[in-house]
């Protein structure tokens, strides 16, 4: 930390000023003695929505918080970073349906034949959020994220019950995708950007990365509890992977 301001100090100093403005000029850098800056550990770079537009991010933050709300048991899906998790997933192989068979012809089929839409998950989100916001504006005069929790629940329930659906995308397909992705974001390893502070694991008593349970598995009805669940990044850091100063 000697020749570089920490990320925290940096933000305090320059606020939202673009980083380029405070970097040394090219001539200075060229004359400065070659010295590699210390590597930041994995996970210390700033996070940002990469697929969602601002209205979409606001929609998903509001929706996931209704599915898994903050209550007396602890924080809900919004604080767990679930909207960010979904954004990252939509920006990657899941969002592009990388492993999905995508050749036509496209037919609706029976429910037992499974997903038959030509839409990728990222397209489902984009279309359905726009449709749902349009519906909310018509019905309530506001977009989904500005509705009261009771109104938001009513909209989500209508999607879940397949009572609210759209010509461009079935509302139920969107709801089931959002529902599955919310669960994934709440309970997956924190390295994907959800389950922050292991909120999901702490809620249910899941220890994260396991240890050898041979000595515990036969102790019947004895709860095995850890002070702090362990994520994959925690273990990798402990063995010197992932960069950073050590």
């Amino acid at each position, binding site marked *: 930390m000697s020749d570089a301001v920490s990320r925290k100090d940096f933000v305090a100093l320059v606020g939202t000023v673009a980083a380029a403005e405070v970097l040394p000029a090219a001539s200075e850098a060229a004359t400065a003695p070659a010295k590699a800056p210390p590597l930041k550990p994995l996970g210390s770079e700033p996070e940002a929505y990469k697929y969602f537009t601002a209205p979409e991010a606001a929609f998903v933050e509001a929706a996931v918080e*209704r*599915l*898994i*709300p903050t*209550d007396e*048991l602890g924080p*809900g899906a919004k604080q767990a970073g679930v909207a960010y998790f979904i954004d990252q997933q939509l920006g990657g*192989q*899941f969002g592009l*349906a*990388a*492993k*999905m*068979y*995508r*050749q036509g*012809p496209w*037919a609706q*089929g*029976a*429910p*037992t*034949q*499974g*997903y*038959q839409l030509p839409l990728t998950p990222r397209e489902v989100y984009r279309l359905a959020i726009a449709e749902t916001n349009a519906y909310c504006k018509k019905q309530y005069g506001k977009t989904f994220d500005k509705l009261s929790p009771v109104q938001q629940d009513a909209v*989500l329930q209508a999607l*879940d019950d397949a009572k609210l659906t759209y010509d461009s995308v079935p509302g139920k397909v969107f709801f089931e995708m959002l*529902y599955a992705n919310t*669960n*994934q974001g709440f*309970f*997956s*390893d924190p*390295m994907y950007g959800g389950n922050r502070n292991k909120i*999901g*694991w702490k*809620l*249910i*008593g*899941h*220890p*994260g*990365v*396991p*240890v*050898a*349970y*041979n000595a*515990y*598995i*036969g102790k*019947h*009805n*004895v*709860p*095995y509890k850890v002070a702090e669940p362990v994520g*994959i990044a925690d*273990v*990798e850091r402990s063995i010197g992977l992932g960069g950073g100063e050590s």
Partner: protein
Amino acid sequence: MATLKSVDAVLVGFGWTGGIIANELTKAGLSVVALERGEFRDTNPDFVAYSRYDELAYAIQYKMMQDTSKETLTFRNERSQTALPMRQLGSFLPGDGVGGAGVHWNGATWRFLPADLTIRSRYTQKYGAAIFGENCTSADWGVTYDELEPYFDRFEYLAGIAGKAGNLRGQTQPGGNPFEGPRQREYPNPPMIASTIGATFAQAVQNLGYNPFPQPSANSTRRYTNPEGVTLGECIYCGYCERFGCETGAKASLQTTLWPKVSKNANFELRTHAKVLKVNLDSTGKKAVSVTYLDSLGREQVQPANMIFLTAYGLNNVHLLLLSKIGQPYDPATGNGVVGKNYAYQAGTNTQLFFNSGKYFNAFMGAGSQSICIDDFNSDNFDHSGKDFVAGGLISASSSGFRPILYHPVPKGTPRWGAAWKKAVAHYYNRSFTIGSQASVQSYRGNYLDLDPTYKDVYGQPLLRMTFDYGPHEHKAAEMIAGVQERIARAAGATTFTTNQLSAHYNIVPYQSTHNTGGAIMGTDPAKSVVNKYMQTWDVPNVFVMGACAFPQNAGYNPTGTIGALTYLSADAVVKRYVKNPGPLA
């Protein structure tokens, strides 16, 4: 197109069956090339990495499974429907890469029961032919339990199966499965430790007069060196078993039981990223001469061989037979033809138990095959007099390790989301378990595999088409099994329980079981089966087909133990008889 140097045997796919064949043939001095469509992977470094404890990548996004963007199948429940592509995996999970589905399996390793292998003749004699009903095409296997016993034994000792014998040379053994066929010796390793779930289930079924026993498991319970000189590690009950590779090398797979030996044999060569498109026949159509495959750069290669073994996942073996025009395709309209006939599956019914207090299950701990089972309602272990269905199913309580994305059960009536759901999830994650059954599935005239007329894979070849639904035997057996499961749930003292019945129609969406059977069935009659009991095709005697595609119907057990035994029986016949005198073995 390049034609490569001829070898004694070429294997299409390199998982459990390919590994066994490769080992037996190279030990006999034969040259073997294995062609695997996927990548190479091994315990170290692939499965020792901490990133293996990633439920999202492995269990949800199917890191080790078949890539459906390249190849999949089409599906319909019945012939009047148009089959549509299985666009993503769901109901079953074929593997991809070295070791195949035998890397991400749970490890439950059964011997099908003597009665399972002679189902048609036994039930006809005991209960009358009418019990099968009109459209049931279930058949005897053409091999008996006694013929298979030495080969079951070989597979169990290869894989280091942990279990407790229930029948040693005809003597019933306490603590084991009293219904099993006689075995010559004990399992190579002691059974797995019973978890709180297992102990709760065992107590309940004992109170009801049933016979609990630990599931035979390929999660090795101690360091174990198998007869091939390969050492497996010890299971640590980490809870990341099914859909994952094993960190400690305790889960038996090609990698942990055979690879260190096979890979050292100078007669053996593995080529990964090699996708076989076709088995090529000579002008008579009675002899295979080579296989055509695409290599890692998409170049077409021709590999000549004296013998060709289809050792991919069963469905893919059937696909390749159809593409290569080996054997007459089955026609459900006439009942003639054999390839694709008698496709069957597994039928599941489960009861979820919820406890408000007094129990804590540590649901996240466990091993793939750590279950306590009862076999009292499986196969012909109970009297079918007056019943209008054959066979039945295994009932068990599993501690296979319940990871939180896929497993956070709530009692029926709980809202699907919101504060009440969250409360229930928090309470029940460690205070719930499931009594599950896997029941036999009979074969029917209308359930079959063929080539799809419309949809193609990324190689331009027609997709396999699956036409399948459950029949009367499955629904009636499931009704009986659900009743038993609920009796057990009450005896276990559950506060509440929820039963998920067998669905009215088979649905390809939710995960059920990677136990797809049939399509290249074995038998004694060339007009009714694809292979003889040596897994040799009747029509092209130098083509052998391994795997569960040989099962004429499915029993109420996981298939791998029986697949292993059939593979050893075949390898033995090839090495001892076929090589000296190539031609039909039966």
